[in-house]
C-alpha cells in the first residue's frame, strides 16, 4: 500500500475540502432564499454561490474522489503497484491548477453561469479552460486505469479481473465517452465565444452536446458507490456477494445505457421532437435495469450475512446484520434514499410527466437525494473503510462515524422531501429570493424553512465527517485489519471475455450513441439553428 497512500489522500482531501465548503455555501443559499433571510444576500452573491456550490459538488468533489478511489482499487484489488504514478501526480497538479482557474473567476463575479453554464450566457474564458484542465487530468486517470488492468491481465492470463477493478475500468471507459459531449461544446462553441472569436452561438447544438455529458456524468459519480455495494459491503457485513456475474453485468449495463439517454434532460426543449423524446424515454427505462438488479443482488448478499449471523424467518436476517459497522449502516440508509430518489427519477423520465416537474424544486430534490444522499453517503462509507488502510491507523470509536451517517440521512430526508412537495406546487428553480407577500408563495414559506433545517443538519454532518477523518490521522496504529474485498458465493474461476473486458461493449456504445444522438446532432449540421448572440457576463 505504500505505493499510493499519499496520492490517494491528496485526492481525497481536495475532494472533501471542496465538499465542506460547498455545504457551507449551500446552507447559506437556503437561508437567504427562505423567509428567514428574505432581505439578505444580493442576486449577484446568491448566484455566485450557486455556481461555486454546483462546481465544487459536481466537478471537484466527484472527480477527485473518483480518481483517488480508482488509484486505491488499482493497487489493492490487483495487488500490484500503480503503473505511471508520475503521470498520476502530474494529472493531480494539472487538476489543481484547473480548480484554481475555475474558482477565481467565480469569486470575482466573472463566471456566474452556474455549473451547467448554458450558453449564450458566457463566462470568463479562464473558467472554461480550468474545467478543461480538470477533465484532461481525469482522462489521464482513465488511461492509467486501463493500463493497470491490461498489465494485470497480461500477468494473469485467463483469470477474471477482480470485480472492483473491472467496475473501476468500466467507469473510466464510460467517463471517456461521457466527456466527449462537453469537450466538443467547450472547445468548439463556448471557449471561442468567451474569447471573443465568435459573436454568435448555436444554442440548440450546445444544449444537445451538454446533455450527452449531463446524464452519463451522474453514473460516473454513482459507480464508486455501487463498487462499494458489490465489493466491500458484503465483506463488511460478514457474508458473501450473491453474484459476481451480476456485478459485472451491472457495470456493463451502466457503461452501455448511461450515455444514450442524455436527451431526457431536454424533454421540454424545442429543438427536438416527439420521436426523439419518446426513444429517449424508452432507453432511459433500460438504464433503470442495473439499479433494479443491484437492489436484489445486494439485498440477497446482506441476507446471506444476516442468516449466517443467526437471523431466522423471512425478515429476521435484517436485525441480525452488524449495523454498528459504518459500511453496513451506510448501505441501509443509502437504499432507503435510493428508493425515494429513484421514485423521483422515474417520474422525471416519464415522457409526459416530466412536464409536471421540469425545473421545479422536484428536480432539485431528486438529485440532492439520489446523489447527495445515496451516492455521497457511500463516499463517506468508502472513506471510513479505506482511510485506516491509507493512514495505518484505526478509528478510536465507530460511534461518531455512525452519528455522522445518521445525521446525513436525516438531514437529507428533511431537506429534500419538502422540496418534492414544493415542486409539485410549482416552486421553480434557481431563485435568489421569493416574493413571500404573494399568497401562493407565502404558503411555501414554512416548507422552505423545514428544508433549511434539514440543510443545517447536513452541514453539521459534513463538518463531523471531516473531523472524523482528521482525527484518524492521530488514531492508534492499526492492528491487522479485516479483509476489504468481498468474495462471491461462487468465486469465478473463469469468466467469458465479454465479462472481462470492454471491446464488445465499446462497439455497442458506439451503435447506441449513433442511434440516439446521430440524427439529433446531425440536424444541427444539416439545418443549423438560427444563432443567438453571445451574452457575456464578465
Amino acid at each position, binding site marked *: 500500500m505504500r505505493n499510493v497512500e499519499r496520492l490517494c489522500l491528496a485526492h481525497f482531501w481536495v475532494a472533501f475540502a471542496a465538499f465542506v465548503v460547498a455545504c457551507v455555501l449551500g446552507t447559506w443559499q437556503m437561508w437567504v432564499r427562505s423567509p428567514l433571510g428574505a432581505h439578505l444576500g444580493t*442576486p*449577484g452573491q446568491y*448566484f455566485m454561490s450557486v455556481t461555486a456550490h454546483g462546481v465544487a459538488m459536481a466537478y471537484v468533489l466527484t472527480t477527485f474522489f473518483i480518481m483517488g478511489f480508482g488509484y486505491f482499487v488499482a493497487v489493492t484489488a490487483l495487488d500490484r503497484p500503480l503503473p505511471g504514478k508520475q503521470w498520476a501526480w502530474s494529472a493531480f497538479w494539472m487538476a489543481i491548477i484547473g480548480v484554481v482557474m475555475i474558482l477565481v473567476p467565480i469569486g470575482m463575479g466573472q463566471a*456566474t453561469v*452556474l455549473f451547467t453554464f*448554458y450558453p*449564450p*450566457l458566457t463566462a470568463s474564458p479562464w473558467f472554461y479552460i480550468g474545467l478543461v484542465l480538470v477533465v484532461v487530468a481525469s482522462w489521464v486517470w482513465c488511461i492509467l486505469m486501463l493500463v493497470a488492468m491490461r498489465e494485470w491481465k497480461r500477468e494473469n492470463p485467463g483469470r477474471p479481473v477482480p470485480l472492483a477493478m473491472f467496475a473501476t475500468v468500466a467507469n473510466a471507459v464510460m467517463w471517456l465517452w461521457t466527456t466527449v459531449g462537453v469537450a466538443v461544446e467547450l472547445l468548439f462553441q463556448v471557449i471561442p465565444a468567451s474569447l471573443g472569436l465568435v459573436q454568435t452561438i*448555436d*444554442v*440548440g447544438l450546445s*444544449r444537445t452536446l451538454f446533455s450527452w455529458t449531463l446524464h452519463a456524468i451522474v453514473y460516473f459519480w454513482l459507480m464508486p458507490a455501487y463498487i462499494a455495494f458489490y465489493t466491500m459491503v458484503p465483506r463488511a457485513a460478514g457474508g458473501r456477494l450473491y*453474484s459476481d456475474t451480476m456485478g459485472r453485468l451491472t457495470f456493463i449495463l451502466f457503461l452501455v445505457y448511461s450515455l444514450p439517454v442524455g436527451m431526457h434532460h*431536454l424533454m*421540454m*426543449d*424545442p*429543438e*427536438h*421532437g*416527439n420521436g426523439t*423524446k*419518446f426513444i429517449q424515454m424508452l432507453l432511459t*427505462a433500460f438504464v*433503470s*435495469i442495473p439499479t*433494479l*438488479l443491484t437492489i*436484489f*443482488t445486494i439485498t*440477497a448478499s446482506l441476507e446471506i450475512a444476516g442468516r449466517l449471523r443467526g437471523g431466522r424467518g423471512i425478515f429476521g436476517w435484517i436485525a441480525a446484520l452488524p449495523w454498528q459497522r459504518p459500511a453496513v449502516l451506510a448501505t441501509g440508509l443509502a437504499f432507503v434514499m435510493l428508493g425515494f430518489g429513484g421514485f423521483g427519477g422515474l417520474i422525471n423520465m416519464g*415522457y*409526459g*410527466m*416530466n*412536464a*409536471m416537474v*421540469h*425545473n*421545479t424544486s422536484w428536480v432539485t430534490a431528486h438529485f440532492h437525494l439520489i446523489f447527495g444522499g445515496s451516492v455521497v453517503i457511500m463516499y463517506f462509507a468508502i472513506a471510513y473503510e479505506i482511510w485506516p488502510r491509507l493512514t495505518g491507523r484505526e478509528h478510536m470509536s465507530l460511534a461518531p462515524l455512525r452519528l455522522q451517517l445518521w445525521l446525513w440521512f436525516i438531514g437529507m430526508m428533511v431537506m429534500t422531501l419538502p422540496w418534492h412537495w414544493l415542486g409539485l*406546487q*410549482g416552486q*421553480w*428553480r*434557481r*431563485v*435568489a*429570493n*421569493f416574493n413571500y407577500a*404573494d399568497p*401562493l408563495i407565502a404558503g411555501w414559506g414554512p416548507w422552505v424553512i423545514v428544508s433549511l433545517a434539514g440543510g443545517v443538519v447536513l452541514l453539521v454532518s459534513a463538518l463531523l465527517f471531516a473531523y472524523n477523518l482528521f482525527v484518524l490521522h492521530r488514531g492508534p496504529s492499526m492492528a491487522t485489519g479485516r479483509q476489504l474485498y468481498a468474495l462471491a*458465493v*461462487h468465486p469465478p474461476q473463469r469468466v467469458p471475455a465479454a465479462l472481462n473486458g470492454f471491446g464488445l461493449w465499446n462497439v455497442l456504445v458506439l451503435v447506441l450513441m449513433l442511434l440516439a444522438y446521430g440524427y439529433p446532432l446531425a440536424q444541427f449540421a444539416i439545418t443549423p*439553428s*438560427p*444563432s*443567438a*448572440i453571445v*451574452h457575456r*457576463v464578465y
Partner: protein
Amino acid sequence: MAELHAGEMHERYILKTELLWAFGVGILIAATLSVIVFTALTMDVNPPSNVERIDPKTLHLSGEFAEQNLGTTVGADGSVTARVIATQFMFVPRCIAVPRGKRITLRFAAPDVIHGLLITGTNVNTMVLPGFVSQVHTEFTRTGDLLMPCHEYCGLGHSEMWAIVQVLPENEFKPGQDGRVSCAQR
C-alpha cells in the same frame, strides 16, 4: 472437488433467481411503459414536440413576434393563440388572458438567452431557447389567476421574471375587433 461442485450448483441456482427477479421487474417496467404510451396516444399527453426555428436577432422587428402581435388573439376560425416573448428579465406581455374550457396554443420565443416557464397547477412547461419557437397546446379547466414564472436561470434578474395567466370564464373572454384579448383590469 465437492466444493467446486457445490459452487457450481450455487451458481446455477443464483443465476436462476436473478433471472426470475429480472423477469419480474421487466414486467413491471413494461406495464408502466404501457400506461405511459396508452395515455400519450389516447389523452394527448406529450412533451412539447414542435420543432420550429426563428431568428432570435430579428424576431422583435417584424413577423409573428413583433410587439403588436403579442398576447392572445382569436383567429377567424375561432382558434385561440397566445404569443409571448421571454426576455431578460420579463415576459411580454406580463399578463396573458386565456379562455376556460377551450383549446389554446401557446407560442414562445426568446431574443437573448435561454429561459423556461411553467404555469402553476397545469402541465404547461417548456424551455424557451433563442433560435426556436416553443409551442404548447393545452386547455385550462378552472378560472382564476395562475403564476407563470421563468424557471431557467437567465441571469441575475431571473428571480423577478414571471407573468400572470388569467383564465377567464367564457362570458369574460371577449376578443376585440382585431381578435385580441387582454387581461381584465381588476
